[in-house]
């Protein structure tokens, strides 16, 4: 199905894998091996693929507990600031502690969808 560009969030571009991809695309453009238009398409594909892969393929789970410090819902984006967070990974007794965690969550339905 032809669903392109605007249907997917660009927020994963700021993830480490997204930034690594952008750096690589920058290098390829610098070396004149690709054009910026292709880089744009690759990033658009990345937006789609990472959303789909995280949704469909990632089965690992973790649970976390902490104190909800601030929350807001603005422009269809939920933001939670949580303090003293303990993460518990699946299949591991190890926990990870963090003083402060920010969770930004967007509607999984793509913009323009009715629900």
């Amino acid at each position: 199905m032809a669903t392109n560009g605007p249907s997917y969030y660009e927020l994963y571009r700021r993830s480490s894998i997204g930034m690594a991809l952008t750096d690589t695309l920058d290098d390829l453009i610098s070396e004149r091996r690709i054009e910026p238009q292709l880089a744009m398409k690759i990033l658009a594909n990345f937006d789609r693929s990472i959303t789909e892969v995280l949704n469909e393929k990632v089965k690992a789970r973790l649970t976390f507990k902490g104190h909800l410090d601030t929350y807001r819902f603005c422009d269809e984006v939920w933001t939670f600031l949580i303090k003293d967070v303990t993460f518990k990974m699946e299949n591991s007794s190890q926990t990870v502690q963090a003083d402060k965690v920010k969770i930004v969550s967007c509607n999984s339905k793509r913009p323009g969808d009715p629900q």
Partner: protein
Amino acid sequence: MEEIQYPQSLGEVEALILQLYQPGSPHRVGKIQETLQSLQRSSDGWQLANSLLGNADEKVRFFGALTFIVKLNTDSKSLTEEEAKGLLQNLINWLIQSLEAPGGPLVVKKLCSVLVAYFMHFSESWKQCVKHIILSLSANNGVPYDAVESAPDTANLMEGLSDAKLLAIFWFSTSLVEEVGKTDSASMKQNQFHRHLLPNIADIVNLLQKTALHDPPNLNQDSKIRQESMRCYQAWVHYSHRAFIDSEIVLEPLRALTRRAIMCLLQDDLYEVTIELFTDVLANYSRFFGEEDFKLLYSLFTSPWAQQRYDRLIQGDFDFDSLQFGMFLIAFGDATVQDLVRNLDTDSQARHLLSSLCGLLGATGPIINEDKIFVPAVEFWATFVETMIDYSYSEDGKTPPWFQSALSYLMKAVENCWRKIQFPPMDNFKEWDSAERTAFKDARKDVGDLLEQSYTQTGSVIFSMFVDLILRSLENEAWAELEASIYCLNSFADCISSDQEACDALLDKVFGSSIFALFTDPEKDMPPRVRQTFLDLIAAYPNHFERHTKYLPNALDLLFKAVDSLPRLAVTASKSIHSLCSSCRNVLVPEIGAFLQQYSKLAGVASLDSLAKEKITGAIASIIQAIPEESSKVAPVSQLLSYVEEDMQQCLHILASWPSQQSQTGSTMGSLPNPAEQLLEGASARCLGSLRCLESMAKGLQVPSDVPVDLDTSSTLAPLWLTGEGASIQQRILRMIITALDTFQGRGDVVEAVCYIFRAGFTETEPGPFVLSVADVATIIMRFGIQTPRLGFTINTACSLVSSQCVGSAQRIDGVARDLLIWVTDLMLALEEPSNDTEIAQNGIDFLSRLVSKHLEVLITHQPSSSLEYLFMFTLKSLTGKDFLPKASAAEFWAHLLASNGNESHIQATLDSMLQHLGPLLAEALIYNIAGNAARSELDKLSEPLKKLVANQVRSKNWLEAALQGANFPSEKVTDAEKRVFLQKVMSLRGARGTNQVIRDFWLACRGSNFAYAS
């Protein structure tokens, strides 16, 4: 290698094309392609395309059509308006000729693509392209586009068109809308494709109404035509979604056809394409359907046709078409889930649909291996629960009228899931491939998630259901059911806190039943998986055992028996022991002797898994930690340590049986014969196991983070562990560590394990057996040289050491920090360049950063001064290098240094004087990066030192100005004026957050517009 001659005649070109399809070396094929592509792009390309299309060979004609596409994409701007019009007529004529030519549809389809490519470049002058194609095909000649205005209606034009021509029209119409749909938003706006496509809608609707969407259905028509017609409708409906997203354009005429399309589901030859269309649209663009469409779909699902298909699926027919029906049902459920929830009380159709969706979870056949509808159905039920949660919260505390009905359906769905996630008989399961087995376990996790979600709505009711199922299956000794029930109960471990009392009472029923007796009965022939899941259950609810200590003996007895007698379950059981002992440590203190005795038996078992040993050692250590009197801990710690020492002794014993010159280092292992290698591997594994047991002990002895801290009590414990009776314990620990390092100095995993033991002590605020003297730890760390494996991790451990402050020891560690700095400096000197080992460089710079935070004086008074200068230059070299990690660490180091304040005036003065010298160099390194040399992802990191420089150094403006104007400025794309503006902006922001964006913009300006494709 044979070279390709540039063709001089049409015949030679044709021969070259035909050679492409002959087997040949990849190099030759590449060369042919290169030659042909240069011909295609040449100024004779248009003529070449025409000539090739006149050839009798289909492959040559295909290449001719391809040449038109290449020319359109590269050279269309060179055509005048008249030439473009002529080209269009010419292309349509080629299409008509190709339809009459013998051969397959390959060339015709390619020519349809050529016409689409033409539209992409000349859409403004070819808006009614579909009608123009129909008109030309009906006239059997490429008529001028102007003739479209006076032409009769499309429906009339279509009369008498051959099947081949109809097919070509559909291929063109489908390809047209698919290609336009693929264009990006900017191009869509620029070329106004939506606006140019809209005039074709009426023609498309006419086409469809004459074919697949004819009312009544024209079953005499060739099914190929009807299928292509339906595919065309599918493509246009998908496009309408894009048009709606981009410009909120609703393609009403297409919506008017939905009811006719629904009826196509009942026609066998159109079923597959139609159901795919409806499933996609329901899942992604259900707004496309109107109320009447939904009514019709509802009634369709209650029709005998749907019932028949549903029954087939439920009875285990998972063929493609049957599965498609299931996906269609789920997509409809997803699209209407809000209505389903709210109207459940009043709408019988909603109830019917929900029953069907519930039934999908109970299809015949094992999930994954056969039943492919189960996982999508579980996802639907997760959406259903989410919707219930949404509506429940919007009801202001009142129970909504639909709630009880929804709950009963949910419980039914959960029960179906429970049945389906039961493991098949082991022999069957083993026959599945590994992907299926993994997918089966993933499906169980999905069900676990659904249960967790459902708990928010059902409360303890669902918990109670699984408790009853456990008790029932216990009674019947139905192992698969018992396993699934326990698995489901495990899923609630993280969510029952709100309803703890009720759940505790229910768990009492389980643990108070005959369950422990059953699991310890050697006569029972239960599959190991059931035992494993039960052990998981014990580990999942440690707090329950803490509150109900009467079950602890049974649980621990079972777990230790499992470790002892069931090697496959030893690790699971030991993890459960660890979990229970850690949670119930205070209750178990009186039993410490029994635990040590139990472990003494286990520790002697040679086959006991090292991970199991590690876990049990940690478990016992956590009980020791809970002993209130510090002095009473010495004896049990000593005893536990002796078991670990025994393992280490055995390791040495193994090694002693081999010639010492061979066993000294890991590096000689490669030259040993095989049995010796195996023996050495065994010895090193034992050594590693001992070290990991030490680490586990150290972690078990850590004070839990949730205990209260008594601020009034001054620590008097230091002598016990450092100089008192506990000191010998520390000495024994150190001896073991040194022995391990001496024996296996070439092994990175041994070095790493030692570092982990040290780290476990660093986090403690009170003295303890593993809170070793910093001097001892530093002495061991400083044994490592540039050749030591995992040296980066070791330096990182030194970082943790200088950052940790042991309250009990109450000592400044400046002396140790000074020694460690000398060690790090030597390593960096030996390294020479940061790029020679980025891990060491990064960790070395991190160490300097820690000194800045905690021991600034140690750093800035480092002697000799040339050594200190080397360190600063090393960080600047890292900053201008290409490697990300040292660069990030260097940026952080400078940000720390620039922001630091010496507590004493002489320290501050030294620091200031150093920065006056280093400031210009730092400014130059930062500008070198910001002016385009840094990677985009490094900019935020590099912004930090620049912000601190601007905020803290009065001469920063001069330094930055000099760097911007200096010879090393790497970009020629920015003018002096732009540099000035940049500097002005950075200075006026005074280190505020906005600096990051200013830096990003300047980086972009220095790199050029080619890099503006991403924000």
